């Protein structure tokens, strides 16, 4: 089971990075971005195409894919910031559902509906603990998730740029009236989260189910992890992602329970939503 839990840590790191991205998006630009992993998937698929069919070196194709993921996300951010600047979070989030479906459909049309022949960026073991091997992918994704969360926390808490982002997230109109450029800042947040999502998906995708739907639906476990932090706390989003990944890995080791791993994110989401609506919170909400 320990082997399974550690094997699940790579996916956990992926969930954690995506959860941090979702949390940043929700806090700073008032969107639950359901297309968070779909933009990453699309960037990665283009990278695979460039590598396999256009003969680009894997590293160069990966860089192009990551930049494309960031650019796609930035474009979506620009559209939402331009035409839905004053819309509520529900409307803005609904647009990302449409983008999610669009990107899945587009990937089917352009690349077919089969998993892609990803070349691993990282391969092999990093070290072993009591005979249990920990892969390089696991180490990198976990370190990346913690580093991104710590870095974002420092950026938001200690820099003028972070201060402006926090102001913008609380009162966008007031921030603009003070000369804080809402649109460029919002697009920057979209672009950075798009880059990070594509980066982490390109690291993990070669070692797991990598068809377009599976990669795009990574947003579900990521949302479960982000929900643990209430879409506000980056540290809990990271913890949620890592624990969820490990739990899925551990459950997969038990034959009678292995199918449960697919439902685990949904169970976590339902559980957290019910917990958040427990009696005392419900009373306050009313």
């Amino acid at each position, binding site marked *: 089971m320990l082997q399974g839990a550690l094997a699940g840590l790579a996916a956990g790191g992926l969930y954690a990075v995506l959860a941090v991205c979702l949390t940043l998006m929700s806090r700073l630009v008032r969107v639950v971005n359901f297309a968070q992993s779909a933009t990453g998937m699309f960037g990665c698929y283009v990278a695979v195409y460039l590598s396999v069919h256009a003969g680009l070196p894997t590293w160069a194709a990966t860089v192009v894919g990551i930049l494309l993921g960031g650019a796609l996300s930035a474009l979506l951010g620009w559209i939402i910031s331009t035409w839905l600047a004053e819309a509520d979070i529900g409307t803005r989030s609904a647009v990302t559902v449409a983008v999610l479906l669009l990107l899945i459909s587009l990937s089917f049309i352009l690349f077919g509906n089969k998993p892609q022949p990803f070349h691993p960026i990282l391969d092999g073991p990093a070290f072993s603990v009591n005979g249990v091997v920990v892969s390089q992918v696991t180490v990198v994704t976990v370190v990346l998730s913690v580093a991104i969360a710590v870095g974002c926390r420092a950026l938001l808490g200690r820099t*003028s740029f972070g*201060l*402006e982002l*926090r*102001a913008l997230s*609380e*009162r966008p*109109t*007031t*921030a*603009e*009236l*003070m*000369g*804080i*450029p*809402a649109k460029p800042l919002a697009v920057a947040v979209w672009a950075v989260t798009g880059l990070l999502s594509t980066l982490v998906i390109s690291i993990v995708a070669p070692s797991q189910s990598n068809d377009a739907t599976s990669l795009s639906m990574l947003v579900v476990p990521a949302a479960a992890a982000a929900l643990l932090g209430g879409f506000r706390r980056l540290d809990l989003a990271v913890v949620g992602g890592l624990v969820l990944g490990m739990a899925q890995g551990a459950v997969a080791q038990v034959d009678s329970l292995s199918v449960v791993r697919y439902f685990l994110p949904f169970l976590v989401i339902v559980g957290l939503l019910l917990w958040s609506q427990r009696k005392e919170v419900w009373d306050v909400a009313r």
Partner: protein
Amino acid sequence: MNALQVRDITVTRGAGPVIREVGFTLEPGRITALVGPNGAGKTSLLEAISGVVPAARGSVHIGDVEVTKHSRVARAKLGLSHIEQGRAVFPGLTVLENLKLTARTWPRVDEVLALFPELDKRRNSPTALLSGGEQQMVVLARAFAARPKFLLIDEMSLGLAPVVFTRLLPMVTRFATEGAAILLVEQFTHLALGVSQDAIVVSSGRVTYQGSAQDLLATPQTLHSAYLGE
């Protein structure tokens, strides 16, 4: 010319115009009181000047630059500051962080805090935890820290006790003596007129009086008639 000019502006909301062909000039160092009954269109007028809502007709000029089509951010960068109705603080930010947003430098923050000793004592408190009067002080201090050339203040007294409001008014006067042109929308008409040089009365979206604030204050009948749109 270093003034803010509003030329024949019309603002539409929903079915029809709420402000009709209103024009005036805000000059440096002067306070203009904008008063009128509830629903007269005062807030809409301020929002059109700062770019929160578009003007259907007419134009707004900051100095020699027409800003009617400019973004809110561009107008702010030309020296226009708009204090919105209610307490427009960033509740999750501390007092210092609120001020740092416009002050840009720590010496300027300290300079502003020296004018608001109450805030200095609570500099590290989240503004959500401050009283209504203190929150409004943060908003004023934040605007002051930006050194605006033109300041639009919308119902600063909303939800505050008159005694708290009267403590804030001298700060508005101070802004003006340092060279800012101020447009003051206020429900406490007499207090607003008392600190203003110029006055505009708006009723049902139209200007019904434009002239000296002191003359208006001295002739209650004129004020009454202007409020009624006569």
